[in-house]
């Protein structure tokens, strides 16, 4: 989706540039500009065709395959087996529900953590550019380390017998004989943590541009700080909220690292990604894995379009 959006932007941008230059030599220039734009678009279009469209078609085709008559494991034939979709939807309903539930929770938590953070960096320390850059680096710095490494580190930090878990047990967040790793809470925690920069950065970019004079105008017009936030700051930062939540929700719904048994999850926390992984690599049930992937994609697409419509920021799509 991001790629599609990018190419759309390029096309729009270049045609705009043309129309400006074309105002003098009318039609001829316009034509020429269109040709140039077309040529410039070719690499992008080729790239999309090769690495986005082809696999997508391949995926859909695989999702419709039926088992080979021989019954051999991993052998399938071309077909139009729509039943696969119904099968996976029923078989994996729990994991599907879990995926979107976790994604929803982690996105909310990431938003609640990132908004004040982005507000602090983008608005509060605005007057000191050096401090602003430093705090921004501090926010992003942990993410220079590999995603997997950090997740494993959390597993270590929170595993049974670790001092951190001891603290959590002592303050009563985790029962004394309990564990944390392998629980849904641990997975949501990991998802939230890992996707915070994708929430913070878009929020930061909109809040950084927030016009302080509008805040003052709100206060001048009798709005108390809470009203100023809900009536002015928040609505003006909606583009950042929408892109931040999209950038976290979409990858989280498809994530399979945090929820896997090797990291923060257990078999009780499996998400769609883990099922795709299992069907594809262990069970060699390629049609199911593909059908589940297509289902995930379609669901995200529908949810996202409803969300973006609702948020009133169609220009983002």
């Amino acid at each position: 989706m991001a790629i599609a959006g990018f190419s759309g932007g390029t096309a729009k941008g270049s045609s705009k540039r043309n129309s400006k230059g074309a105002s003098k030599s009318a039609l001829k220039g316009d034509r020429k500009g269109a040709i140039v734009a077309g040529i410039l678009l070719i690499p992008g279009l080729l790239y999309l065709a090769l690495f986005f469209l082809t696999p997508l078609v391949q995926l859909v085709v695989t999702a419709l395959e039926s088992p080979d008559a021989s019954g051999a494991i991993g052998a399938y034939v071309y077909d139009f087996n729509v039943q696969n979709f119904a099968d996976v939807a029923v078989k994996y309903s729990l994991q599907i529900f879990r995926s979107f539930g976790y994604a929803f929770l982690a996105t909310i938590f990431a938003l609640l953590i990132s908004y004040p953070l982005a507000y602090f960096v983008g608005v509060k320390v605005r007057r000191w550019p050096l401090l602003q850059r430093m705090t921004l680096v501090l926010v992003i710095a942990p993410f220079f380390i590999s995603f997997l490494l950090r997740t494993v580190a959390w597993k270590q930090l929170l595993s049974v017998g670790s001092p951190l878990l001891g603290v959590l047990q002592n303050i009563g967040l985790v029962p004394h004989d309990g564990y944390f790793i392998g629980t849904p809470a641990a997975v949501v925690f990991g998802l939230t943590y890992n996707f915070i920069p994708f929430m913070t950065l878009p929020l930061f970019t909109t809040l950084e541009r927030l016009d302080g004079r509008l805040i003052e105008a709100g206060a001048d017009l009798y709005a108390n700080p809470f009203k100023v936030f809900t009536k002015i700051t928040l609505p003006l930062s909606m583009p950042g909220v929408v892109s931040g939540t999209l950038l976290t929700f979409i990858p989280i719904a498809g994530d399979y690292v945090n929820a896997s048994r090797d990291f923060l999850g257990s078999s009780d926390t499996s998400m769609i990604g883990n099922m795709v992984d299992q069907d594809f690599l262990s069970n060699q049930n390629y049609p199911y894995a593909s059908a589940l992937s297509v289902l995930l994609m379609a669901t995200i697409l529908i949810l996202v379009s409803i969300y973006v419509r609702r948020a009133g920021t169609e220009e983002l799509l």
Partner: protein
Amino acid sequence: MERRYQWCGITLANSVKASSSGAALELVNIRKEFPGFTAIEDLDLKINAGEFFALLGPSGCGKTTTLRIVAGLETPTSGRVFLGGEDITDTKPHQRAVNTVFQSYALFPHMTVLDNVAFGLRQRKVDEPLKKAQDALALVELSHLADRRPQQLSGGQQQRVALARAIVNRPSLLLLDEPLGALDLKLRRQMQIELKAIQIEVGLTFLHVTHDQEEAMDMADTVAVMNKGRIEQMGAPEALYDRPKTAFVSKFLGQSNLFVGDVVETNDSAVSINLHGNKITVPVARAEKTAGKIAVGVRPEKVQFHESAPAAAAGQNILGPGEIIDIRFTGVSNQYLIEIPQVGSVTVFAQNVGKSPVVELGAQVWVSFKVEHAFGLADLPVGTEED
């Protein structure tokens, strides 16, 4: 004078008080320091209820900072702010019955024009905010644009929305920060008339900040001239023009001819100074200083010139002869620049009514002006240091 606002039946304990008529503003000993820079020094100001008060000064003299202190957007380093007799120095902006028309308008881009105007009313939970906002838009003749976004409006229209958004709240005091600065001359004159009419109609206290002396003189009941964070002089526009007390005011508010010399004689009625052999007299009542080195000024339109030496007469200051070095025809009046040896250059405005002598560049002339038109300043113009 200060009625609890009528639009809201109940008056909550912490709700903002607003009056249907204006309240008096008093600034006492205000000082504002920014890191490494003092923007306002020992500023005292008193504005009567219902008055149109103009704060006039060059760019960077601290006008916006003063308004921001009154609005509560800036905390003074020291000093107190009183509104309607009540000390509001420590109250938050949203608790003050003060509204601002910002220099940048600061309209909310995510709201329609109507919602912008209704914003303050809604915050105070006033009844029928939309109807009142419509009325305010009608007052500034923008009813037809109520559903537009501010970005879709011209500068002049945005300015009027900003005005409506502030006025609709009927604040005790309306602060206007160079609201006409972005408009072209014609629209500006038109808006000045409208603004003055609105002020009379709604009866609010207006504190209008501008760097345009004509605008200030035109609209205000009282003008305060501000320079480098201080108020140099305050008074009715005519009084300020007739008797400026400092060199800055005499130059910033209209034009002035200034003569610097030593006082040679002071009696009950007049002070005389010696200007390299020329004597200039100013009434004692119009002189801020009566000893030492002082600057005496006169407005260019109060000066006449003559082709032959006029006879000395009581009540007249005569200088010359000098040479006409520049003539400008500005339509209704001609502007002559006359260079007088030892005295300096003198500007003379003569109305084009056929009474002034017809002179050529380089002609030899004398200038005269009535003693009663001269004024003695408290300070000396920049560049003529005390010795």
